């Protein structure tokens, strides 16, 4: 069966999703599951009254079944008690949609999990809290490893690894990774966008909210920013080919293709 061979009901929920949006307030709790790296991310918002789900909303980034299962879950559980809602499974959601393609049963059927996360958050007294309200600088110092401990780093100095500010003309049209080393590195990343279309800025910190944080201008720029990320290794036989990155938030590792890595000393 093709991965997009969806039931009519699934397609209906994809085309006309119910209960899209966000909510806030002391009687609202939020659950988050998924990861954009995998192609799915969802937030489930519940408003609780007398131990029941009085209202529910969702936001989803993902494929057809990710959207449809989110929508169906909200329909299924609206009005249920929290105990009843905790018993709703991925299988129930898939059944209510007249089934899902086998390959989508796991990865794109996370809505029930997001709901359970929201209920747990409520029960732990975290009503009114938005997940990962970022506190700049909240990440422990230990997240930022000195560059000498990055595997493969020293061997590639001069072959795409820079410890000093590089001549930007040398990086024309190259894919450049700039590590967060404070304000100078932010300025460098912004300046490099004049020379190349691909600048990635990587920081171990959480996404800055404060308007006066020196990292904030990155948001408006063409720099691709990876927060809560740590450089593990620089890979390449003759020159920099790839880096290995640890996503601290999801505790996952992945590879990214780049031509140059800048770690200012």
């Amino acid at each position, binding site marked *: 069966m093709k991965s997009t061979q969806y039931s009519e009901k699934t*397609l209906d929920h994809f085309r006309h999703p119910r209960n899209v949006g966000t909510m806030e307030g002391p009687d609202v709790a939020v659950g988050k599951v998924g990861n954009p790296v995998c*192609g799915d991310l969802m*937030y489930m918002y519940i408003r609780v009254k007398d131990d029941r789900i009085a209202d529910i909303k969702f936001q989803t*980034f*993902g*494929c057809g079944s990710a959207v449809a299962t989110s929508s169906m879950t909200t329909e299924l559980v609206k009005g249920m008690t929290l105990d009843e809602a905790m018993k709703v499974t991925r299988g129930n959601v898939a059944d209510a949609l007249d089934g899902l393609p086998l390959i989508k049963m796991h990865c794109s059927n996370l809505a029930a999990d997001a709901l359970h996360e929201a209920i747990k958050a409520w029960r732990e007294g975290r009503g009114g809290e938005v997940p990962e309200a970022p506190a700049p600088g909240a990440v422990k110092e230990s997240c930022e490893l000195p560059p000498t401990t990055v595997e493969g780093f020293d061997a590639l100095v001069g072959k795409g690894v820079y410890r000093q500010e590089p001549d930007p003309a040398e990086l024309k049209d190259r*894919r450049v990774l700039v590590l967060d080393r404070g304000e100078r590195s932010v300025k460098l990343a912004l300046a490099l966008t004049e020379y190349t279309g691909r600048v990635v800025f990587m920081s171990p910190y959480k*996404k800055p909210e404060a308007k006066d944080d020196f990292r904030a201008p990155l948001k408006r720029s063409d720099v691709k920013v*990876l927060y809560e990320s740590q450089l593990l290794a620089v890979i390449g036989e003759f020159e920099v080919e790839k880096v290995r990155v640890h996503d601290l938030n999801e505790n996952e590792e992945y590879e990214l293709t780049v*031509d140059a890595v800048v770690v200012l000393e």
Partner: protein
Amino acid sequence: MPANVYLDYQSSKPVDPRVVEAMLPWFTDRFGNPNSLHQDGDEATEALERSRERVARFIGAEKDEIVFTGGATESNNLALLGYIARNRRKGDHVVIAEVEHISVHNLAKALEKQGIKVTRVPVDQFGRVSPAKLRARIKDETLLVSVGWASSEIGTVQPIRETADMLRGSGIALHVDAVAAEGLVSIDMREVGVDLLTLSSNDIYGPKGLGALYVRKGVHVAPVIIGGGQENGLRSGTENMPAIVGMAEAADIMVRELSEDVARMRPLRDRLVREVLAAIPDSHLNGHPTERLSNNAHFRFEAVEGESLLLSLKDKGVSVSTGSACSSKTLEPSHTLLSCGLLHEEAHGSLEFTFGRWSKPSDVDRVLEVLPGIVARLRALSPLYDMDNKLKGEH
């Protein structure tokens, strides 16, 4: 010809009606086997060799340098497995580009199981393989280099002439999978020093189930399909005459009409690129801005997922492809996009439009009419697209 808005010519092409007409007699009246010695067999032999000549002419080759196969995948098998089997005593190392078609990637894995060492050359942000980077990876033991003429996905055209020039005189064979490029760029074996070239019939509007491998005179390959010794022993099995005649007819038409085809498609593609990038915020063109196939437009839209885009376009009668993991069998995003340096979540939001012989301006009109609304609707659902309309740092 396509009744809906079909912008997925890279996945499959209709057979040109002129080709179908040329094929028809070979199903019924002229059904002889070229291996038979009677009148009907002679007639088939003559048509087989005439067809070989016509396909050879399409790429500036000699008639005897064309081997008909069961398709481009089989041609790639014959090129890589066949060349290595025959020349193994000369070395044990193969170099391929990271952006090769999946069939070449999986052949490289199969070769590794046979003890062959494989180096995968990285590409730049546009998906191009630099001949200098390639040269740096060549060793004394290198037997074969395999680089596609163009990417079937992002449409980037490789510097094949420079690559061939760089390898000239080295004794290393150059295999080029030309499936994505044939019918879109001029391919002439008299001008470019390629040793093995993969062709597909459907990609020039011929029937499916047929391909060809160009094997330069003096280059030796061992067969991978063993049997009655057809195709000079390189590809056994009774010749698929209707398809062979069809490919030859398609090749003839392409020789005459390639520049006309390109002149028709390029403005359509250019308008789609220009207007999509202008109408949809946070949209990008993947692949090379200029060194790209004239029929290819490959976009990515931040904070939306490709399968959702594809499904929504399907609802509006528009057929396209995506590099998103969610629409693949393995749930892995396109290796080509990752090799270009995109993050997984960026690769997920990609959409590929490919034009063909029957594309018309109204196809572009329809896409421009529906796509901005589709992207906006999916972004309204997406937690990655924040209030001030900018996706940044959500990772």
